[in-house]
């Protein structure tokens, strides 16, 4: 239970202290809403890493979720609270169908293919004008958050969504399913040889991951109140992957830490003007060079070191 204490305190701070600290500044609330939602979406990517796959398709599923919620609420008049789960469901189903075939690939092959999937989804959104309205996009998407406290509502909603997502993923890693997933990551053939239905579990994990993408994309879309074929693209897909890597693939909190550091970092660096993108890139590469196993590995390596020294 001690293990959980740290993260729980962190989350309590995130829910309680952050809004207090930033005094309801709509800018900072926007930043943290984005961070929460990006982190939530990246949790899906993290889960695909957990079964040993590098997923650069999350932008595609965010786009699918975004379009689902946009089409349902704007064109069919569904209420947001009904359209949101639907968006997750649609993305999860599409993920399941696509995943049942492409998950046979591994390693960089799977990674490259998912990259192409993101690009293919953008082109599909552009060409399938009957549903997506093509290049003109869908704007004026109704938001469920209204009134003076709309930013605060959106903040709490996205923070709670992230919290729920973290809990869900953490639960998955703790139960039998998680053990199976870990087995898939370590050695698929071995897992198959001990009687695990590898294909079924892979698809299950990928569907859950894509549902996370769909939900995250849907909420982001509603927050921005507009969606276009380029709203989530290859850059976003690689960003989601980077959040996981940078935070640390060994840790459930990895994507959240990665999203926090990268999104907040870019915002804070805006004071540098023309050098913002360059310094951002340099810092990112430095982080990778110095901590190739993620930012969270820092904490653990310090702890391990002190333990080792304590023993000597």
């Amino acid at each position, binding site marked *: 239970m001690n293990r959980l204490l740290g993260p729980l305190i962190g989350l309590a701070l995130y829910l309680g202290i952050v809004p207090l600290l930033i005094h309801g500044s*709509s*800018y900072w609330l926007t930043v943290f809403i*984005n961070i929460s939602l990006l982190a939530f979406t990246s949790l899906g990517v993290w889960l695909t890493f957990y079964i040993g796959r590098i997923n650069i398709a999350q932008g595609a599923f965010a786009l699918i979720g975004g379009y689902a919620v946009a089409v349902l609420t704007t064109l069919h008049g569904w209420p947001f609270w009904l359209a949101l789960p639907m968006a997750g469901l649609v993305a999860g189903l599409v993920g399941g169908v696509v995943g049942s075939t492409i998950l046979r690939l591994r390693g960089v092959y799977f990674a490259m293919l998912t990259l192409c999937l993101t690009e293919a989804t953008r082109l599909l959104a552009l060409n399938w004008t009957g549903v997506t309205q093509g*290049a*003109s996009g869908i704007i004026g998407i109704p938001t469920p958050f209204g009134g003076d406290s*709309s930013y605060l509502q959106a903040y709490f909603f996205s923070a709670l969504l992230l919290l729920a997502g973290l809990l869900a993923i953490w639960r998955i890693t703790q139960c039998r399913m998680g053990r199976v997933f870990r087995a898939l990551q370590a050695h698929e053939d071995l897992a198959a040889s001990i009687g695990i239905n590898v294909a079924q579990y892979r698809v299950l994990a990928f569907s859950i991951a894509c549902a996370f993408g769909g939900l995250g994309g849907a909420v982001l879309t509603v927050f*921005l109140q*507009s*969606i*276009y074929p380029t709203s989530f693209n290859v850059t976003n897909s690689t960003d989601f992957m980077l959040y996981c890597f940078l935070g640390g693939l060994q840790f459930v909190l990895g994507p959240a830490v990665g999203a926090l550091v990268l999104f907040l970092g870019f915002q804070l660096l805006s004071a540098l003007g023309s050098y913002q993108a360059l310094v951002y890139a340099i810092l990112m590469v430095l982080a990778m060079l110095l901590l190739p196993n993620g930012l969270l590995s820092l904490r653990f390596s310090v702890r391990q070191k002190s333990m080792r020294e304590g023993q000597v």
Partner: protein
Amino acid sequence: MKATAVLGVGLFFIGVALAQQPVLKIGVNGVMSGPAASWGLVNKYSAETTAAMINAEGGWKIGDKKYKVEIVALDDKNDPKISAANAEKLVSMGVKYIIGPNVDTTAGAVMPVMEKAKAINFPYAFSKELYTPPHGNSILGMIASYQAGPVIYKYLKEKKGVKNIAFLARNEADPLNQMKEGEDAAKMLGLNIVTSGATYEPGTTDFAPVLQGILAKNPDLLVLSGVAPGDAPLLIKSAREMGYKGLLSTETAQDAKILQQVAGSLADGFISVGGASTPSIQTPYMLDFVKAYTKRVGEWNDEAGTKVYALEMILRTLQLAGPAAINDVELFKKTLTKFNIPNPFVKGNPPLKFVGSAYFSQPRQLGVPMVVNEFKDGKFQTLFVGSVE
């Protein structure tokens, strides 16, 4: 000791002087990195150049005070999420007037922020919904291609006998919209559209395959919708080499240098819409701007000739509306219809106004003059200057 004291007193007075001069912050929010970096960067450079010129003269007078103009430029990486966050940041700093962003995707995401924060932005995106009621806090920063198109097509129909027209668009949201509007305009003029819906992917290196099908239909005019400055000379060159004899035009601003570098004399006769790019129509003020811009950035960019207007018109409108409008955009909006000045950049042409009522049923567009250029011998030459109502 004495020297320090004198210095200290001196600094104190300078400090007082600075503190006394009020600051007017104007935002620029656009894409300043990645493949489309030039769009946002030209916005930023233009605004910064103008601001520096004004501040060198002691500031901008609104009411009875002279304001120091400060540009706050933020890179949105062409990402709607970051663009919206940037807009929030700017309004949280008290900025009420923001130049940008550059494409529909980001402009769509920024619009709700502007409405909530009661601020005004000047996107360079063509989506009509942004400027049409119930929305009213976005003002289109330039001539939309769907406005330039009919004017150019009409001119070419009457003067050059164009009958068959073909369209080719860069495969992105804005260019596709431009093509759609261009096709509608061509239909209205009774032109015969020989191909419809042809596009090329951004990053295409060889345009022969794309052009082949279009040129086989023998158009008199090939319109390159939303063509990027780097792609235009290649398309022109390929089309000419494939034996195309007809006219070529685009409705977006182009870059003379790359046209000359890549296509050379093959680009002669290429028609595009620009700013006050040709010396024959530039006012001394525009010449100063070109000089200052070149000094600041290192190289002149013709696109800046169309992007010089945003800051200028914001400041002049504020002057007209009075100091209260700095924080109250409603006053600014009310002044839009009254605004009518001689164009400071282009010689002897229709006055500068806020236009767009015909398209958006409210004046939500900078009335940038439509300078239609023809490329010849490495330079742009002005064919005619049109305007939008």
